[in-house]
C-alpha cells in the first residue's frame, strides 16, 4: 500500500509542479461562474436563473471537458515512462505492476478530484454568497452530486487512458487513440444512437434503447445530473430516452463505478502482458 502512495505522491507533486491542478481548477471555476450568470443569455436573460438550469448547463459542458482533461492527464502514464526509460528501472524495484498502475490512478484521480472540488466548489460558494434567496440545501445537494459524478466521470476516462497507455508502444499513438476515445464516447455515440432510432423506423425494440445509454459513461453522467429535479424539462436529444429508463438513481451511480472498475481491471491485465 505504501508503494501505491509513493507513486501517487509523485504524480500529485507533478500535477502541482506543472500547474495542471491550478489550471484545471481555474478553468472549472471560470466556466462554472460564467455559466451560472451568463448561461441564460441565449434566452435573453442575464444573471443567475435557477439551480437545475445551471447544473444542466454545467453538466453538458463538463461532459465534453472532463473526459478530455482526464485523457490528457493519463494517456502517457505507462507508455511515457517506457519512452522516457524509467519504466524498466521502476520494474526492477520492489514494486508490482498493479501497484504502479494503482499509484498512477490514485495520483491522477486525486488531481482530478481536487480540481473539481476547488473549481466547482468556488463557483458554488460564489452562488451561495452572491445570489439572494438561494435554497442552500438544494445548492449543496446539487453541486455535491455534480462534483462527485464529475470526478467519477474523470476517473472513468483515466482508467480508459491507462488501457491505451499499457497497450501501445509509442506516446503519439496513445495520444491519437485517446482523442479517438473521446470522440467516440462524447460525440459519436449519441449520434449513432439517434441514427439507430431513426433508421430502424420503430423496428428496434424501444424498451431496449434506453439501456444502451448505460453503455456510455458520459450519458450515465448526464442522466445522473439531469434527474432529480422537478419538471425535468432540460432533457434534450438522446437524454430524453433517459426518462424511459426504468432504473433509479442508485443504479446509475453503480453503473458509473463499474465504468471505473472494469477499464482499470482491463488496464491491469494489459499492463501485465506488456513486454519489457
Amino acid at each position, binding site marked *: 500500500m505504501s*508503494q501505491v502512495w*509513493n*507513486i501517487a505522491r*509523485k504524480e500529485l507533486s*507533478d500535477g502541482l*509542479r*506543472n500547474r495542471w491542478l491550478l489550471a484545471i481548477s481555474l478553468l472549472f471555476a471560470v466556466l462554472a461562474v460564467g455559466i451560472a450568470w451568463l448561461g441564460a443569455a441565449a434566452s435573453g436573460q442575464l444573471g443567475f436563473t435557477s439551480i437545475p438550469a445551471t447544473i444542466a448547463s454545467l453538466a453538458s459542458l463538463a461532459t465534453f471537458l472532463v473526459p478530455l482533461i482526464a485523457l490528457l492527464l493519463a494517456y502517457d502514464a505507462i507508455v511515457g515512462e517506457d519512452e*522516457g*526509460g*524509467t519504466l*524498466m*528501472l*521502476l*520494474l*526492477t*524495484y*520492489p*514494486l*508490482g505492476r498493479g501497484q504502479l498502475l494503482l499509484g498512477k490512478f490514485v495520483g491522477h484521480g486525486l488531481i482530478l478530484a481536487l480540481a473539481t472540488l476547488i473549481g466547482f466548489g468556488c463557483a458554488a460558494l460564489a452562488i451561495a454568497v452572491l445570489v439572494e434567496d438561494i435554497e442552500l440545501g438544494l445548492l449543496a445537494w446539487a453541486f455535491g452530486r455534480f462534483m462527485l459524478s464529475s470526478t467519477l466521470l474523470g476517473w472513468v476516462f483515466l482508467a480508459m487512458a491507462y488501457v491505451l497507455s499499457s497497450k501501445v508502444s509509442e506516446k503519439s499513438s496513445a495520444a491519437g487513440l485517446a482523442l479517438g476515445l473521446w470522440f467516440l464516447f462524447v460525440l459519436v455515440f449519441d449520434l449513432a444512437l439517434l441514427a439507430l432510432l431513426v433508421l430502424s423506423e420503430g423496428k428496434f425494440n424501444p424498451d431496449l434503447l434506453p439501456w444502451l445509454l448505460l453503455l456510455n459513461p458520459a450519458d450515465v453522467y448526464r442522466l445522473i445530473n439531469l434527474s432529480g429535479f422537478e419538471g425535468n424539462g432540460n432533457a434534450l436529444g438522446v437524454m430524453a430516452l433517459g426518462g424511459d429508463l426504468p432504473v433509479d438513481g442508485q443504479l446509475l451511480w453503480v453503473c458509473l463505478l463499474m465504468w471505473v472498475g472494469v477499464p482499470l481491471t482491463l488496464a491491469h491485465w494489459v499492463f501485465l502482458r506488456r513486454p*519489457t
Partner: protein
Amino acid sequence: MNAVEIKGVSQQYGSMTVLHDLTLSLGEGEVLGLFGHNGAGKTTTMKLILGLLQASSGTVQVLGRNPKDSLVRQQLGYLPENVTFYAQLSGRETLRHFARLKGAPLSQVDELLEQVGLAPAMERRVKTYSKGMRQRLGLAQALLGAPRLLLLDEPTVGLDPIATQDLYQLVDRLRQQGTSIILCSHVLPGVEAHINRAAILSHGRLQAVGSLASLREDAGLPALIRASGLKQSAQLLQRWRAGGHQARSVGIDGIEVVAINGHKLDLLRELLGEGGAQDIDIHQPSLEDLYRHYMDQAQSTQAREGAV
C-alpha cells in the same frame, strides 16, 4: 550461497533463440565482467537476473530466491544502459523518490549524492544534467539501500577518465564490503584490474568464463617479451629462431620474442643471464586480446556450422 545462479537457461523471442543453454554463477563478493558484442545476449542475461524476463527454459536464482521476489529486488541495485530520469525533478527529488520506492532511508540520499560528486548540482533539474552527471545519478540510484547485488550496464559510458577511475575504485570498495557485482561493458581497457572473472558471450552462447589468468591459459595466447641493451642480441636471435621461437630484432641491441605458454620463464632467464638485458618489457595478453581471440573462435565455429 551464490548471489546469482543461472542453470541451463535458454531464452526465445518468438522463433529466435537469443540465449543458448547458459550456465553462469556469481559468488558472494565477486565481480564478474560480462562482455560481448551487440546482440550477444548481455542485456537478456541482465533482464533474466532482474526478473524482467521469464526464462524459456532453465532456472535463474538470485540471492537464493526467485528474481521476481520483492525481497530480492530490495537488495538489488541496477544501473541501466543510458539511464534517464524524470527531467522535471531535481537530482535530489529523483533520488528521494527512488529511495522511498526501495525502502531505503532518506538520509542516504544526500550521502550518495555527495559520494558520486553531485552534491553541488543536487537542487538543479535533471533536464540540465550532462550525460556524465545523469550516469552518476544513475549510479547513486543503484546504490540506494546498500544492495548485496549490483548490476551495472555500461557504467562508464559518458564518464570522463577521472570519474571512470572513481567508479572503478567504488567497485573495488564495494567488493571488499562483500557486494557481488556484474559489470557489463564494451570498454575493455581498464576493466581487467577490477574484475575477478570475465564471461564472454557471443551470439547467445557463453564462449568462455574464468579469471583472466585461467582464460589466458585456456586461450594459449602468447606473451610478448621485449628486451633492450643486450650484449649479444644477434646470437640470441639466431639461437631462438633455430629453436622455433618467433623473434625479431628491435633497434641495435633489442629483441622482441613471442613467448608461448611455458616458455616465458626460460626465455626470461636467458635474457637476464647470458643476454645481460638492461630493460625488459613483458606484454601479457590483455582482456582485449582474449576477447578478440574468443570472438574469432566463435565466428569460425559458426562459419563451420553454417557450412555444414
